[in-house]
């Protein structure tokens, strides 16, 4: 049994301790906003926050997340108000197919927490998520809008 705190709620999950956190979130807990893309921490579709830091959950054993604060895309909005990154994504029409965007948004939210005014180089370095639709230009516009909104 592993004790997880996801979006402020605690879950006791009966899984093998080496199960990747991604699959526990998706299949055991049932939060499907976090996506499977590659399983080898290449694409970032599975990005969640662990104690506020962006982590690729496909490559983290669930036992390593025990006792930590896990936030998924479903928990990013607070008190019914979208996170500024989500709002910026809506305002700038960022998603196309949208499949990568949960992870993209989580990665950007963690970046902005760390660096409220990231440079272009900061963004290129920190946001290495794969978007197969190639929304990178809109993602950058969204980041700039989110920065400006604070």
């Amino acid at each position, binding site marked *: 049994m592993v004790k997880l705190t996801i979006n402020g709620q605690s879950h006791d999950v009966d899984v093998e301790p080496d199960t990747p956190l991604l699959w526990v979130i998706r299949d055991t807990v049932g939060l499907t906003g976090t996506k499977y893309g590659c399983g080898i921490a290449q694409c970032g579709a599975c990005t969640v926050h662990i104690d506020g830091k962006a982590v690729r959950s496909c490559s983290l054993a669930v036992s390593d997340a025990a006792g930590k604060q896990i936030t998924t895309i479903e928990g990013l909005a607070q008190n019914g108000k979208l996170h500024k990154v989500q709002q910026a994504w809506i305002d700038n029409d960022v998603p196309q*197919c*949208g499949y990568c965007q949960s992870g993209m948004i989580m990665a950007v939210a963690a970046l902005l927490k760390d660096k409220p005014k990231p440079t272009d180089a900061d963004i290129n370095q920190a946001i290495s998520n794969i978007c197969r639709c*190639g929304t990178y230009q809109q993602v950058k516009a969204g980041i700039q809008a989110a920065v400006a909104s604070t």
Partner: protein
Amino acid sequence: MTEIRLPQLERRTFLKSAVAVGGALALGFGIPFGQKARAEGAAAEITAWIVIAPDDRVTIRIARSEMGQGITTALPMLVAEELGCAWENVRAEFVAPEENLRRNRAWGDMSTGGSRSVRTSQDFLRKAGATAREMLIAAAAARWNVPAHECAAQDGVITHAPSRRTLRFGEVAAAAAAVAPPKDVRLKAPNEWTLIGTPRKRLDVADKVSGKPIYAIDVRLPGMLYAALAQCPVFRGKLADVDETRIAGMRGVRQVIRFDDAVAVVADGWWQASQALDALAVTWDAGRNGAVSSDTIAALLRAGLDSAEAGVGREQGDAVTRLAQSPTRLTAEYHLPYLAHATLEPQNCTAHVVGDQVEIWVPTQHGESAIAVAAAAAGVPPRSVKVHKMMLGGGFGRRGIVQDFIPHAVKIAKQVGRPVQTIWSREEDMRHDYYRPTMMARMTASLDADGLPDAWHVRLAGNSIIHTLFSGGFLGGGIDKHAQEGFTDDMPYDVAHFRVDFVERNAHVPVGFWRGVSHTQNCFFKECFIDEMAHAAGQDPYRFRRRLIGKHPQAEKFRAVLDAAAKASGWGEPAPPGHHRGMALEEVDNAFMGAVAEVSVGADGALKVHRFVCAIDCGHVVNPMTVEMQIASGVAFGLTAALFGEITIRDGRVHESNFHDYGMLRMADMPKVETILVPSGGFWGGVGEPPSAIVAPAVCNAIFAATGQRIRSLPLKNHDLRKI
């Protein structure tokens, strides 16, 4: 507030409102209101495309699939333009494929590909809107007892000008649904449009930023199990033996299912299934393709370049004889690899089979084909199948004609007797695709005294998509002209003696439609060789192209986009220090594109694409916002292929497995994409596929300008770009 309904909910609206009607045309006509009218507060269906609720909310139904290209917004815009509703009240919902069959295909073709959604449905969608508008007006006029021609509809309100009375759409929707649809409706002229051509935000974004379960891979059903699938790594091979010893007692593992060509493990969770699948000892029978490699396939194609027999796609004059007699010839050979689609959502399908009833949740570009495929897999008639069309986590042609992600999933669920979600691992997805074919080209040309080609022979050799996907009878005369697109009547250049021919050499590797299809090869061959000819003639590539565009019926459009790209890119003016430019020109899916890439190549050979200017004339532009985004998307897609894209074959199987060895463009690599819309109007072109074709040649021509190196094969990761 606009919204996209979750596909799961849509079925209920359908079951409530749908009534079988016979003989409907492509434009679905009004449903006899019958009992539905008595249901208080019910939304009324006014033509099959439009449902209007008493609170004025307008639901517009979409037959095509949404995979990021923006049809969830563009197609309703076409309807709403004529309907005259308030855009803010519009929401979209997918048509259930089985309803389309049940209602005699009232919504027409559901296949989504070839950049066809807008251009092939704009006519009947606008008519559907206009028809509904006339029905609403007729209902209002009847209520007021005035002639309909004295009434007009705008922003969801019908006004009788003489008496200054008004009625909202929601107030007359129920009555309008009972009005006989007019036989003929007048469509607005383009200069009367107020919605088409204006930038509109997508209707499906809110769900996509909040992690809503809108994709097939997100479906969760009571009692659902998960399956991981391994197909024979050598295409056309068989399953020989499975030893289950090593998975005995593995937690959560329920069942091993054997197929002729595959094996699946069913478990409580997908990770458990996947772990058990990896642990299984599986023996495959590779069949007779176990020794095939990229090298043997290349040899097959190279021999094709010398073949005496070839399917001629276009011939004028006598290029072969002229070239044989020409004292000086310019020749070059090009070679392009297989490419995978790599949709970020891997192939998956959730199925539930109860008796002879089959229900699937699937990311499909072709809902009706999904019915047929699922029915065949389950051995039931098509009418027993329900397909939940979900948002697609990428499509790019992977999920259209071929629906190979359905049969195993349906058979697994049938055998298990519970809902099962079958997910292909990324590795499985990478190694079992219908790939963009590998292709070679040999160019031979002679230049006249002015430096322009007077004879040009294009010899292509490669795999035929058409023959792979549509066996028997599809090709009149047997010549695959599709593989020659870009060189046939869609080529803008005047060459007195010209011939393009194709030697079909198929390997065992399955091939299919990949965003941009044969243009992704032929635009590279053509536009790179044009650059080579310009260089040989000592002429500027822009001026050379301009001189060569001659009597083509669309010459003006080609010239306009070429000029627009040249102008916007600063062609002919000094580039920033260290930057170099390359150009390309192509027509794809009835859209005309001119492009200029601006690159630098470091002393260490490091390539940076700084800027990509793409001018496009796609005729009428419905939503300029999504058009611009599709251009940027296509550029990223094309650049990914140019830089990294290569599927190689070893021992009959695909070597690449995931994004570490099948690289993807990331933020740091993304050039600044500048889209120049030069819509000439008067026609409807596509935008989803075209731009991906034009990237590689523009970039490679820029690399030549920077380094003097001719790039005749891709991807660029295989080339040493240090200056020679």
